[in-house]
């Protein structure tokens, strides 16, 4: 995050563009937009140093509403475009905003490779488990059997889970949150912004029109306490409306226990910095309704970033061979002279 002390501080409002926000009423994207604006202001981000890149989808209209630089690109390619941006100018803060279709259907491969390269992009995946913009077909995260326009008898594709995919692709930072949990969204975004390397944030997002209430269980005041568990580094996995339940490992399988019977010390203690991603993967496999679903930072580890390594090799070469000189480049290899007379 490039902040600069000698410039006036910006407010969340300063990150709002002059464009009318065109998402449906009740769409979860609204809330995320506001949180992003707040977080950027709070972190002292500069508009001119910030770039939002998106693909195509409802969620991908995001850049229009930000008073930063923005690129509303083509379907699925935002991570690749953002990679070009970051390579050309590693000083920029580059955010990618994408949807479950954009990121995981057509764009799945770019997400995978962006993640493995650990390039410094902050990726916000607005997962509404549906194709919103094209008016409601099932997406790669739609539950098995979802009935949509293109799956009138129920979808026959088994869903994938973004956090699992990210971990399988060697992610260094991955987190999950839910659109209306505004404090938590802000927390997760702040953490993502601070991460060096690829930060991947899945946000459960309500599509009011085509998949309303898909996440009611995680947002409903009544039920959410029992349905989600917040991950905190170094802390045991405790949840429940009355924080009376916990998760411990039984052999190698997570198990819900009652804190009346089990001590917090026996619970899984979350370690987002674990060198091995296996435990993070295990947490990603805790799915509603069998388990409370974990929200928060699954994993946050350090690894050299792509842009560091890229520029590092350039610097190393310059240090070793001196900055490139065309004269020398042209004359490398076997050269010969032709004199006025025509013979060497």
């Amino acid at each position, binding site marked *: 995050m490039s902040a600069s002390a000698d410039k006036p501080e910006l407010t969340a409002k300063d990150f709002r*563009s002059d*464009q009318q926000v065109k998402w449906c009423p009740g769409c979860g994207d609204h809330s995320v937009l506001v949180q992003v604006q707040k977080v950027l202001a709070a972190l002292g981000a*500069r*508009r*001119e*140093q910030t770039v939002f*890149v998106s693909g*195509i989808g409802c969620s991908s209209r995001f*850049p229009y509403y*930000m*008073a*930063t*630089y*923005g*690129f*509303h*690109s*083509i379907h699925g*390619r935002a991570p*690749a*475009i953002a*990679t*070009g*941006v*970051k*390579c*050309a*100018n590693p*000083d*920029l803060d580059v955010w990618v905003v994408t949807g479950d279709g954009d990121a995981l259907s057509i764009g799945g*491969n*770019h997400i*995978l*490779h962006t993640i493995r390269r650990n390039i410094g992009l902050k990726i916000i995946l607005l997962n509404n488990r549906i194709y919103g913009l094209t008016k409601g077909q099932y997406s790669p995260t739609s539950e098995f059997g979802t009935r949509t326009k293109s799956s009138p008898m129920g979808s026959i594709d088994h869903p994938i889970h973004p956090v699992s995919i990210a971990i399988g692709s060697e992610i260094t930072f991955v987190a999950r949150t839910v659109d209306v949990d505004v404090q938590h969204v802000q927390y997760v975004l702040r953490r993502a912004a601070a991460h060096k390397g690829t930060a991947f944030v899945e946000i459960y997002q309500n599509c009011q029109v085509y998949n309303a209430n898909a996440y009611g269980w995680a947002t409903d005041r009544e039920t959410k306490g029992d349905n989600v568990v917040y991950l905190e580094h170094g802390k045991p996995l405790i949840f429940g409306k009355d924080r009376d339940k916990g998760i411990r490992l039984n052999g190698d399988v997570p198990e819900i226990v009652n804190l009346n019977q089990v001590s917090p010390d026996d619970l899984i203690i979350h370690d987002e910095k674990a060198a091995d991603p296996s435990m993070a993967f295990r947490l990603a496999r805790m799915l509603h309704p069998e388990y409370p679903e974990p929200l928060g930072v699954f994993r946050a580890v350090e690894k050299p970033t792509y842009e560091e390594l890229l520029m590092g*090799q*350039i610097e*190393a*070469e*310059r240090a*070793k*061979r*001196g*900055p*490139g*000189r*065309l*004269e020398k*480049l*042209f*004359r490398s*290899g*076997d*050269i*010969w*002279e*032709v*004199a006025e007379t*025509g*013979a*060497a």
Partner: protein
Amino acid sequence: MGTATTNKHQAGQKPAKHIEERLQAAVRFAGDSGDGMQLVGGQFTATSAVFGNDVATFPDYPAEIRAPIGTLAGVSGFQINFASRHIYTPGDRVDVLVAMNPAALKANIRDVVEGGIVIVNSDEFDAGNLQRAQYSTNPLETDELSRYQVYKVPITQQTLAAVKETGLGPRDAGRCKNFYALGLLYWLFDRPLDPTLSWVNGKFARVPAVANANKLALEAGYAFGETAEMFAVRYQIRPAELQPGTYRNLTGNQATAIGLVTAAQLAGKPLFYGSYPITPASEILHDLSSYKNFDVRVFQAEDEIAAMAAVVGAAYAGAIATTGTSGPGMALKQEALGLGVMTELPMVIVNVQRGGPSTGLPTKTEQADLWQAVLGRNGECPVPVLAAQSPADCFWSAIEAVRVAVKYMTPVILLSDGYLANGSEPWRVPDPDRLPKIEVRHPTDPATFQPYARDEHGARPWALPGTPGLEHRVGGLEKADITGDVCYVPENHHRMTELRAQKVANVLRDIPDQEVYGDPSGELLVVSWGGTFGAVRTAIEQAREAGRSVAHVHMRWLNPMPRNLGEILSRFRRVLVCELNMGQLQLLLRGRYLVDALGLHKVQGRPFMVSDILSRIDELMGGRAS
């Protein structure tokens, strides 16, 4: 060999050893992939170039990585054309073939001119190798080769004998036989050994035994020519009248890579090259990967789409953004290229064309991506397109492509092809300080900035992220004129479509008028583009020398087309478009200028031979040029 005539050689005839002068000769080294033919080909080229000849070369790699030893699929060749005058091609046919085994003989013999010299490594003509080459009888023992001067040299044995003193094992010793063959050819063409000897010393400095062995083999080959009483004549090809200066031999891919680096330096910017490996474009990626001290940022992408998309992003953020690929990869790039057109950002896409459709003939050359380049995207999506005309010209074309891209804020497609990519020719090294800078302007004033306002060229401003106050949004949806906001207004879409087209048409201002070689008007105009320049120009020269009234227009820019082209076409009674496809430029010229252009089409994975063009001219003009 040039215009000189060759002597028929009769077996048993006592060879005389005089030196005969020639204007030009084409030599081909051919052997198994492991025989080091590319290496000695390169040495022969360098020596000839240093000697002062004009040279042009073409390697012929096998399609397999490592086909079984001794098979036809495993034959590797390298052809050098060298002359005391200006030449444009590696030569239609070869005057001297070196065949290191039966497969090499079989695969190459049909390209040898009648009466040409064939030097074979007779040691390799055993039953196994003959069978692997699909010879049922030994061609050295039948009259199959009677139309050539065949010299059977026991190259393997002689090499082993020559290098014995180095103590190398038989395998390493045998590896030197290519140098033996090279030495023999040096003798045949009266070339100095020094350049190669000093190269060997440098190259094998750390393994002196190998250096010594190669040197001994080279000298032994030379000495064999001198003493063996086998060859009737030696040939001499004098230095050519070349423009004075420093020269270096470059393949098209090397030239493209250096050209891109140079362009970025002239613009004072980092070079971004995002690419996915593909034959025959990969060497551009390889070369650029080693130019890091020029602030070259190479991104080996997961596929061509990612490469293209990253180029769009890099252009947006201010790099000289470029990519390279070949046919199938080009197809994959088109959608993201369209985004470059809509966002009006500068970038260069190099397409090193190969045989298609689909995977086609991936290691072979073709010019069948012209339509794809000019017309192959969704929507009205115009892009300037130019094509390089020779290996070294790839350097100049790359710079020109970047220059136009930046000036007009547009993607530019540069067409190369497999023939240019792998072929080489001497490049006269320019003085970098004399190359005109590429002017780049980035707006900084928020008061006057409008994302889609246009300058005198029709280009919008290149506003860089990082510039305070110019924050704006771009994207693939239609833009409002001037402001660049998303806009669905019908009239605006029409207007923007016209503005984009107009901008590409404006590139004309940077394109010189088309030159005509030969008579300014007359009977027949031959039109060509891209890598066929050499063959076509040679044919036209020869036809004109033979008294034909023909002229040649070689097009560098395919879109837009030079202002005066229509007028030129109208001055000739007939127009013939020669291209390595089924008539792609032909259609465009006909459609645009309503000229009844005829075509000469060849899709064989091979370049034109000069004779292909001459025959077609003969056909059209009647009779035969003398």
